[in-house]
């Protein structure tokens, strides 16, 4: 595979282009061209298509797109380009079963296929949503550690430490990043899971300095060092700095990607193809051990609407049928805790991801932007749904997901924000209150009636 040193070299020697021209004269026309060439068409009636030929065409389109657009480095104005041969080599030699975690909590993240009965990887937690204080932070971490199907956790971001608000880019960010690592590790120790991998590195970090400093206080090479791509198909030097550090540690980069529906990608077809192009970027530029993706809607800021779910499904099928590089899907739901809608949204996203060949990262709620509006309930629910649908056929779950989507899609533009963690969980025990348990049982019964076979 092209070396990381050569990638750095290309950030300085690749073709120069303004960012606006890259967006509008390189990325957009090349994307539209491959969407047309490979006859990729969105079908709103079937969020989970069962068409392997369409999946293969989406993959070919994504490979061709990446060969044509590369990755734009916003700090140098250069396009990091790769030949088709370099892309094929990267796909052939990419990691296939990276082992995350330590001791008895260590486990390989294996690639799945559409309709596969291979157990999914359940990366569970907050996905970096903001938490108001350290007491709630550690209580929530303990809640995640207690989930039976948990394979790795994703921590929240602290917004205060010692009661002091955190300012990004300041020493308070560095100190809070250090506190994040210490508390996350401690929370897992308290529930007897000291080796469980933290797979979103230091969620509190905004800067490369914050991430690197925080990691010195508890992160391990066997954790997941989440590094996010910039929309669309971009990188900056800060992210490359982080990658350089993690590679030198022998750590796992979790390459996060987020094509935007309604943005430069256009509609669901463009999002699906771009997700494949990101898959390759995740290997070559971000040097990932896996891709962790969340296609997202520009207006609703979530990924549980019909168009985004279609893009997730077909791109998961495209990737997992044609690549062994592991793929995870992050759920960003619009509704918040202790609402019926959150159970439906999470179910639709998880079913779509799992049966289309991916694994999951399940997050909180309320679009991940409302402080304390997430709990361990949705990650637990997501993992139970994931295990309930392994081995099911796309055509069957397509019908189920259609029924579920109808229950909430009209509310996506104005979703219920729900309650805060401390209003639906006991902070001392990290357990949900009775009302929340009743909602969970009701949802489980309803989904069971649709044909899902829960493991417990």
């Amino acid at each position, binding site marked *: 595979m092209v070396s990381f040193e050569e990638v750095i070299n290309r950030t300085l020697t690749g073709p120069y282009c303004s960012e606006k021209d890259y*967006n*509008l004269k390189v990325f957009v026309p090349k994307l539209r061209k491959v969407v047309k060439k490979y006859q990729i068409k969105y079908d709103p009636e079937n969020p989970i298509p069962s068409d392997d030929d369409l999946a293969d065409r989406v993959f070919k389109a994504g490979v061709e797109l990446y060969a044509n657009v590369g990755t734009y480095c916003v700090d140098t104005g250069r396009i990091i380009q790769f030949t088709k041969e370099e892309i094929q080599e990267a796909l052939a030699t990419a990691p296939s079963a990276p082992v995350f975690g330590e001791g008895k909590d260590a486990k390989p993240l294996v690639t799945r296929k559409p309709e596969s009965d291979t157990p999914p990887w359940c990366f569970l937690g907050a996905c970096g949503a903001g938490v108001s204080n350290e007491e709630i932070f550690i209580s929530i971490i303990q809640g995640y550690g207690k989930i039976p199907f948990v394979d790795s956790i994703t921590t929240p*971001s602290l917004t205060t430490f010692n009661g002091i608000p955190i*300012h990004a880019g300041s020493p308070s*960010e560095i100190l809070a990043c250090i506190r994040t690592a210490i508390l996350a590790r401690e929370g897992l120790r308290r529930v007897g899971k000291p080796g469980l991998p933290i797979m979103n590195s230091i969620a509190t970090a*905004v800067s490369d300095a914050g991430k690197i400093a925080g990691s010195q206080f508890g992160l391990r090479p066997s954790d997941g060092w989440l590094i996010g791509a910039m929309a669309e198909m971009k990188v900056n030097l800060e992210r490359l700095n982080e990658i350089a550090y993690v590679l030198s540690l022998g750590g796992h980069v979790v390459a996060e990607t987020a094509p*935007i529906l309604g943005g430069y990608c256009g509609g669901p077809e463009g999002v699906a193809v771009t997700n494949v192009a990101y898959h390759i970027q995740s290997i070559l530029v971000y040097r990932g051990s896996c891709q962790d993706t969340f296609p997202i809607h*520009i*207006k609703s800021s979530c990924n549980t609407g019909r168009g985004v779910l279609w893009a997730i499904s077909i791109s998961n099928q495209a990737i997992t049928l044609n690549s062994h590089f592991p793929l995870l899907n992050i759920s960003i739901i619009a509704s918040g805790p202790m609402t019926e809608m959150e159970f439906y949204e999470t179910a639709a996203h998880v079913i779509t991801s799992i049966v289309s060949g991916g694994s999951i990262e399940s997050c909180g709620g309320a679009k991940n932007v409302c*402080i304390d509006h997430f709990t361990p309930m949705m990650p637990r629910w997501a993992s139970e749904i994931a295990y309930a649908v392994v081995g099911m056929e796309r055509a069957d779950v397509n019908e189920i997901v259609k029924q579920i989507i109808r229950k909430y899609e009209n509310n996506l533009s104005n979703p219920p924000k729900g309650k805060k963690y401390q209003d639906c969980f006991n902070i001392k025990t990290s357990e949900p209150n009775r009302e929340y348990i009743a909602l969970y049982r009701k949802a489980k019964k309803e989904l069971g009636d649709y044909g899902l076979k829960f493991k417990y």
Partner: protein
Amino acid sequence: MTKERIFKDLFSAVVSLDEEKGVRAANELIKEKLDPLEGIEKGLSEGMKVIGEKFDKLEVFLPELLMAADVFNSTMEVLGPEILIRGKKVEKKGTVVIGTVKGDIHEIGKDIVAMLLETAGFAVHNLGKDISVSTFLEQAKQLKADIIAMSSLLTTTMLAQKELIDILKAEKKRDKYTIMIGGAPTSQAWADEIGADGYGKTAKDAVSLALKLVSQKREEERDG
């Protein structure tokens, strides 16, 4: 060519993203000695309104919105000098200094707001991303801004919005600027808490809000 035909061409140039057509219609307008301000109002701005509405319903996507703005600006480059020759001037609705706050590199949403404000008649100074509070304040002072608009996409960067307002309050300059905020973790409640003048949930909301707030400010200035 009739007046109506030229205005219609200006309108359709924006909607069909046809830069050449826009420039051609602008030159025709000048040749026919028509009022360029009327051409802007009844042609270009109407076209932008339609594109904005289509984007709101996602009948078109971000690239179309940006390309329409390019058509608008290219046509304005032809009409601008003619407006000056006639001793008129384009009355700006107000001056906006806009940017994404320090530590935050997300700017797609902020850029959409900047572009829609510009085509709605504001003089917009888009400072970019990762902008410090002091840069916002210096630029606002230098450009005699009416509005300071700050975007933030992270819970750890949104505090900068409060910080800027606190500085203005401490320096007894809070009334000098209208402060607007936006970005995923922000809300009307956050705007109220930190003492901002307004919060825009969407780009369209932000433009309506800016027009309303500037109009209120002008009225207050008139009433002394």
